[in-house]
């Protein structure tokens, strides 16, 4: 139990830290919503190391805390929708034995962006941002792939040093 609590703490802290790093990093692309999603490394890792349920908790904790710290209240809704949808997609892919951590991460990246666009449509009240969906899907695939690769190598070390 104590060990699990410690894991929760480490993962949550890492995820929030990644959120900070991401907030500081400037994105070289002038399209709103394009980002790397560094904190998803932690969520994906958590899913493989601790389990699905635990990854969900970490995801929610990180979204709420990093939104309050770095983005403000409106950002919270965008992030929450993104986190929920991306979590659902990741769990869906995770269940298949034929998919690796990279596939999970790619699905998560793409659906995170789709979730954010849906919220943007609701908040703005018009479908003005819908045309961003294809662009953000491609950027989600690219970011998800990169995040998946990093997670894959991280996972090796975490598993090796687990005991």
């Amino acid at each position, binding site marked *: 139990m104590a060990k699990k609590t410690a894991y929760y703490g480490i993962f949550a802290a890492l995820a929030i830290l990644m959120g900070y790093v991401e907030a500081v990093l400037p994105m070289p692309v002038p399209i709103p919503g394009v980002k790397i999603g560094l904190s998803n490394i932690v969520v994906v890792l958590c899913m493989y190391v601790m389990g699905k349920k635990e990854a969900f908790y970490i995801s929610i904790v990180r979204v709420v805390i990093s939104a309050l710290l770095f983005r403000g209240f409106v950002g919270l809704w965008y992030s929450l929708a993104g986190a929920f949808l991306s979590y659902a997609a990741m769990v869906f*892919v995770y269940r*298949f034995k*034929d*998919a*690796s951590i*990279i*596939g999970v991460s*790619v*699905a998560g990246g*793409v659906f995170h962006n789709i979730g954010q666009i849906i919220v943007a449509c609701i908040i703005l009240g*018009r*479908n*003005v941002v*819908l*045309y961003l*969906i*294809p*662009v953000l*899907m*491609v950027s*989600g*695939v690219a970011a998800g*792939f990169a995040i*998946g690769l990093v997670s894959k190598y991280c996972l090796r070390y975490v598993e090796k040093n687990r005991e």
Partner: protein
Amino acid sequence: MKKLDFIIIAVLLACAGMLYFSGLLKPGNEGAYAVVYVDGEEVERYDLSQDTEDTINGIGGINEIKIENGKISVVSADCRDQVCVNHIPVNKENESIICLPHKVVIEIENGVQNSIDGVVK
């Protein structure tokens, strides 16, 4: 990387490509509207892409409006100052024609972005 990873990536990229080339999600630049307010209440909404003529019942009088070439203008009014009639046709975001005597405000929504005078909301 396993087989399904490639399939996921391919399917997602294909979806993105299809959505992009289907043109379903084009930004609605033609969706410009002229919204008419009388005494602060919205009474009518015209699509600027359709040429039309109509009469607005303002307070204490009428204004005849006309939409042509994506712009709206007031062609005649029985108000005393005729400011609205002399106003140029409008089609840009946040532009408006106002008839003070009749408390009529015609405002453009979702219109062409103004290139010189920007308005920050």
